[in-house]
């Protein structure tokens, strides 16, 4: 015999607790490894990094670097997402377009960043090079997800639409695009981390005046490992924030499919 009354709230706070414990565990692990390695120059303990983080956060340069890197990442992400989405849709909707674009996409997908950076430097302002690198990394991820999504569109719905003679544009907007949404979301989830990573990596190479990557490189050259990690912590936090934003968007979706 089962009697039902409403009660279902503890779970969420339980999950938060698990997350917290696991974060503390990671910090502990870090502490232990740093003690084991026994060289601050390689891996300083968390508290040193915290102190250093507070120190560097006092400078104006710090905040400007964060701002600039964030702008670059947003820019790179938006650009790649936009172009990747359109290209993915175009390739997925027409075999001809796909055949025509596929050599170009393959090149973008495969070209080593090192090989193209010179050309990028000629074409863009140097502080746009990270944006370009970000594009090279993310564009293929989005395209791949979108075109896989399109190939998974429920064919019975497409059949329905063409039975009712819907225009290609209507099919695109009311069937194809909505069906690819889960794939686009997966792509976005995957791409968010890659975006930060690739922008920062490119900053380390191209060293724009204000940039997290420049901060990392500069500190690394000076063997200020605590500072390197302080910058890293910033990068992780930024990425986490953007992940969170993406999750919010994902959760806001209203409909779900039925069988």
């Amino acid at each position, binding site marked *: 015999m089962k009697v039902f009354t409403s009660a279902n709230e503890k779970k969420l706070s339980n999950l938060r607790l698990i997350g917290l414990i696991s974060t503390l565990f990671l910090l502990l692990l870090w502490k232990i490894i740093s003690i084991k*390695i026994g*060289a*601050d*120059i*390689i891996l300083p303990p968390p508290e040193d990094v915290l102190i250093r983080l507070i120190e560097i956060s006092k400078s104006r340069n710090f905040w400007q670097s964060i701002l600039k890197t964030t702008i670059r990442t947003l820019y790179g992400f938006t650009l790649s997402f936009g172009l990747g989405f359109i290209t993915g849709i175009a390739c997925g909707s027409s075999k001809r377009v796909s055949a025509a674009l596929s050599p170009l996409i393959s090149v973008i997908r495969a070209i080593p960043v090192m090989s193209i*950076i*010179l050309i990028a*430097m*000629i074409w863009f302002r*140097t*502080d746009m*090079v990270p944006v370009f690198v970000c594009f090279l990394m993310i564009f293929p991820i989005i395209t791949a997800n979108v075109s896989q999504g399109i190939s998974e569109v429920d064919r019975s719905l497409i059949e329905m639409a063409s039975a009712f003679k819907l225009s290609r544009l209507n099919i695109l907007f009311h069937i194809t695009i909505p069906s690819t949404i889960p794939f686009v979301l997966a792509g976005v989830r995957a791409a968010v981390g890659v975006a930060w990573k690739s922008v920062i990596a490119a900053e380390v*190479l*191209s*060293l*724009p005046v204000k940039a997290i990557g*420049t901060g990392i*490189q*500069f*500190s*690394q*050259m*000076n*063997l*200020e490992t605590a500072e390197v990690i302080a910058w890293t912590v910033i990068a992780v936090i930024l990425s986490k924030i953007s992940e969170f934003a993406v999750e919010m968007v994902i959760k806001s979706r209203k409909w779900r499919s039925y069988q």
Partner: protein
Amino acid sequence: TANGVQEKKEEIEITVAVFKGPSGIAATKLLGDNFQPGFNTKVNYIILGSPMEAVAKMTSGEVDAVFLPVNMAAKLYTKGPRFKLAAVSGLGSLYMVSTDNSIKNWFDLRGKTIYLTGKGATPDYLLRYLLLENGLNPAEDVKLDFSAQAPQIAQLMIAGRAETSFIPQPFVLQIETNSNVAKTVLDPQKELLRIRGGKQAFPFTAFAISPKLYENRPEAAASLIEALEKSITWTLENPKEASQIIENYGIMSAVIAKKAIPVSGIEFVSAAEAKESVEDFLKMMLDLDPVSVGGNLPDEGFYFSK
């Protein structure tokens, strides 16, 4: 072995790290002969990609002798695993190259965009120092662009896409031979001597050794240093053979090594001889940015003596 006397101590193994790139040239003969110093000390040679990699291995105790920038050596002595300076193996080989031949002195750089590499590394500090000394503010009067690596800067210079760069050998040579307009316009080595009044060009690459080596086997360390001197001399005299060895070890390609050997400032200066110029150089760095040498100058112990 070099020494007939049998040591009672048990054998120890040490590892000498050589980098890919110009700094590796100094070690050519050591590598080529697989030089062993004796004194029950077995030497392994490894080739590494970058100083950063060496720093990791130095701290973890995997590397006992290494070539690296002087300020990094100082910092690793004060803050890290107490490596000592055993010798200087390379002097500065940086030059200001430009397609604008109206640049006659450092003040003429005003308003220019200068391409250089390694923010936070020696070239960055040195250029800033020289600009300051010549009455220019590095942050305002010039634009420093770090966005390309040395080869890329060279490519841009040759193609006429960049006007002025502060770049090491052998790229200076490459630019001069491949471009008909770009020329060396300024020599920072000379300028530094002028300003600070020293006798010697500034030290660029240090040969540093670990406590394990200098405490347990000072004799072997001395023997290794001696061999390094010979190696450098031999390399400078026999660039053709040397460059083949360099290529075999994957340090550089032979073609480029042959060009680089005479111009890359490879030179042996013993720790004792180098002490004054090293101190002066580190002082200069310290004044510019204390972080670059680890907050303060290294003490006497930094300079290895047998």
